[in-house]
C-alpha cells in the first residue's frame, strides 16, 4: 500500500479537477472521498435542512394523528408521520457523516435548529387547523416534495441519492394516503367538501412558495446554481414549480375544487403556467422563523429534546451500567 499516496500528492487544483471529472462522468461521490469545501458545505446545508424539515414536518400532521376519524385513518396517518421521522433519520445520517470531519454530530444539528442557525422548510411553519389539512398535506405538500426529491434521485453524492431512493419509494404511499383522505372528503357531505376547498385556499401560497423563488434576485439568495453545477439537482425552482402545476392542477380541478388563483392559466404558446406570485417578502419572514407557527413548533421540538436529555445522558457509553 506504499504506492497509494499518488492522490494525496496532488495539488488542490488537481484534486478539484479530478473531482469535477468524476462529477462530469456521473460517478458517485462517497462520504470518505476528497471533495471541495464548497461541495461539502452545500451538501451539509441542503441535506441537514432537508432532514430537519422532515422532523419538523411531522409536527403539523402530528396534531391529527390522535384525532384521525377512523381506525384505518389512525393507522394510516401514524405510519405516514412515522415515515417523516424515518426520512429525517435517513437524511440526518447523511448530513452527520458529512459534518464528521468538523467534529459535529446530531447534537449540533439539534442545537443549530433551536438557535435558528439551521432553517427548516417554509411549508412547515404553517398552521394545519382541520382534518382537511391533514389530507391536503399528504396529497399536495407531499406531491410537491416528490417533485423536488425525484429531481435529486441522481444526485452526484451517493449517500444522498441512496437515501432519496428509499424516501421516494415511501412518498408514493404518502401521496396515496393523502389522496385517500381527500377523495373521501371530496366525495362526501357538503361540509366535508368545504373542508377540502378551505384547506386548498389556506395552503395555496405555501404550495407556490414550496419550490423557492425563481431566481436569487427575488429574495436575495438561492443555492440553486451551485447545486446544479455539482449535479446535485438538475432542474431550477421554477421548472419544478411548473412540473407541479402540470401534474396536479388537472387533478385539483377534477375533484371539483376551485383554484384559489383566478388568474391562473396555461399559456400554450410559451408552454408555461401563468400564475400570481406569492408574497416573497412573507417567504423571507417565514424562513427566518417568523411564520405563523414557527416559534410554537420550535418550542415543541426543543422542549421534547430537553425533556428527554436525561435519557441520552444516562445512556452515554461513558456511564457504566452496574
Amino acid at each position, binding site marked *: *500500500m506504499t504506492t*497509494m*499516496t*499518488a*492522490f*494525496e500528492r496532488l495539488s488542490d487544483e488537481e484534486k478539484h479537477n479530478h473531482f469535477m471529472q468524476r462529477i462530469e462522468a456521473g460517478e458517485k461521490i*462517497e462520504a*470518505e*472521498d*476528497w471533495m471541495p469545501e464548497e461541495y461539502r458545505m452545500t451538501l451539509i446545508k441542503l441535506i441537514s435542512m432537508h432532514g430537519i424539515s422532515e422532523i419538523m414536518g411531522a409536527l403539523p400532521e402530528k396534531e391529527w394523528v390522535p384525532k384521525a376519524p377512523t381506525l384505518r385513518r389512525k393507522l394510516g396517518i401514524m405510519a405516514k408521520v*412515522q415515515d417523516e421521522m*424515518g426520512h429525517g*433519520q*435517513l437524511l440526518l*445520517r447523511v448530513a*452527520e*457523516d458529512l459534518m464528521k470531519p468538523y467534529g459535529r*454530530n*446530531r*447534537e449540533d444539528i439539534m442545537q443549530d435548529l433551536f438557535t435558528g442557525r439551521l432553517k427548516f422548510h417554509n411549508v412547515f411553519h404553517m398552521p394545519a387547523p382541520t382534518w382537511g389539512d391533514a389530507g391536503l398535506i399528504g396529497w399536495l405538500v407531499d406531491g410537491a416534495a416528490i417533485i423536488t426529491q425525484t429531481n435529486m434521485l441522481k444526485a452526484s453524492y451517493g449517500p444522498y441519492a441512496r*437515501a432519496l431512493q*428509499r424516501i421516494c419509494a*415511501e412518498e408514493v404511499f404518502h401521496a396515496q394516503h393523502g389522496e385517500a383522505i381527500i377523495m373521501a372528503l371530496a366525495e362526501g357531505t357538503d361540509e366535508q367538501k368545504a373542508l377540502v376547498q378551505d384547506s386548498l385556499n389556506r395552503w395555496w401560497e405555501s404550495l407556490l412558495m414550496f419550490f423557492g423563488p425563481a431566481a436569487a434576485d427575488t429574495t436575495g439568495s438561492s443555492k440553486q446554481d451551485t447545486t446544479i453545477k455539482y449535479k446535485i439537482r438538475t432542474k431550477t425552482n421554477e421548472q419544478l414549480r411548473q412540473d407541479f402545476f402540470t401534474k396536479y392542477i388537472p387533478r385539483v380541478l377534477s375533484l371539483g375544487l376551485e383554484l384559489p388563483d383566478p388568474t391562473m392559466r396555461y399559456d400554450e404558446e410559451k408552454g408555461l403556467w401563468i400564475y400570481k406570485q406569492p408574497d416573497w417578502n412573507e417567504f423571507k419572514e417565514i424562513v427566518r422563523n417568523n411564520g405563523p407557527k414557527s416559534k410554537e413548533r420550535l418550542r415543541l421540538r426543543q422542549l421534547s429534546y*430537553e425533556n428527554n*436529555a436525561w435519557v*441520552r*445522558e444516562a*445512556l*452515554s*457509553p*461513558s*456511564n457504566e451500567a452496574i
Partner: protein
Amino acid sequence: MGDKGREFYQEFEVFSKRTFKSPFQHQFSLLAPNHELAVVMAQENFMRREPVVDIWVVKRSDIRMFNQEEREALQRLDNKEYRNTKGYGYLKKKWRDKEQGMLDEKEILSWGGDDK
C-alpha cells in the same frame, strides 16, 4: 447539554437478510448508545415494509474501510480469461465432436437440486 448527551449518538451500520436463502445486505446506518438499543431500532427504521429474517448491527468504528486512494487497488486488467469459463469456451466444440454436451455452469449448478 454536556458531552454525555453527545456520546449517546454512536454510529451503527445495519445489515439484514430478506429471506433465509439470501445473503446479508447493508441497509443503512443509525445512531444509538449501544449495540442492544441499536438492535432494537434496526428493523423498524429500515425494514418496516419488507420481510426480514435476520439482522446484524456493527459498530461503525469496528469497520476498516477502503479510503479513496485504496479503492484504486480494486482495479484490475481485463486479461484473466483463464480464471473464468470464458477462457475454456473452445471445449464446447471439442466435446460436440465427441458427441458429448458441455458441462457448463448452468448444467453443473443444477446438479444440487432434487428437481431433476
